[in-house]
């Protein structure tokens, strides 16, 4: 898995590429932690290049749903391919997290 963090105006974009599994999700976890600790209010996950996600990757997002609410953090995931989005749908996480098609939509949420 590769990560890239990009500041774009008021948005903090975390670009994730490759496989997000139990061996790699810790790095994504840390990137989101850093953004939250820095007080960033608009965190966008660019999932365009995610090839695979396992529960460890989902856990990174799920464990923070309450924290995002508590701190009014606008957290949006965009660009997931059908295969990866389907993994979110298995447990209904697509209804609990904001998942949109692309960057333009992510900015308008």
């Amino acid at each position, binding site marked *: 898995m590769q990560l890239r963090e990009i500041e774009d105006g008021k948005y903090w974009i975390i670009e994730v590429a490759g*496989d997000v599994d139990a061996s790699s999700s810790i790095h994504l976890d840390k990137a989101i932690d850093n953004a939250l600790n820095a007080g960033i209010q608009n965190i966008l996950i660019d999932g365009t290049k995610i090839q695979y996600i396992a529960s460890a990757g989902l856990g990174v997002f799920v464990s923070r749903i309450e924290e995002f609410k508590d701190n009014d953090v606008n957290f949006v995931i965009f660009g997931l391919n059908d295969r990866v989005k*389907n*993994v979110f749908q298995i447990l209904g996480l697509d209804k609990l997290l904001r998942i949109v098609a692309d960057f333009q939509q992510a900015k308008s949420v």
Partner: protein
Amino acid sequence: MIHYYKANCHSENLKLIREFVKIVLGNLHLTENNLNQLVLAVDEVCTNIIFHSANNNPNKTLEITIVENADSLEFEIIDRYSGQFNPIQALQVRPTLQNIIEERRKGGIGLLLVRNIMDEVEVSHENCQNIWRLRKMLKNEPYSHSA
């Protein structure tokens, strides 16, 4: 047909395990999503074994057997380690997604996924081995299986 794979219990091998399952199931004409779900279910069980039973120790191994039946796929995953992880107890605990969200937990989702993906999930302890048995009925997926 029966397919067998033995892997060292190290997290870096999860990708190889996924590749094995993907190759075995690749000729069954499953949809991309259904194939990925089966790969995911096996990956989740192996992740539990590698991290919790074998403590991510590459000197330890796990074994995966996939049996192709006319109407179902059977996945058997075996390890010989206990660590602090009791797979039988783990399968009995059934947290809801709401529990996990409220408790702000990162773990617990893996077995939820496995249960949702597979039609049957069992684990037993026999002859010093933990044996996971997962079954997916193919007749339940008329839209995905043309074999």
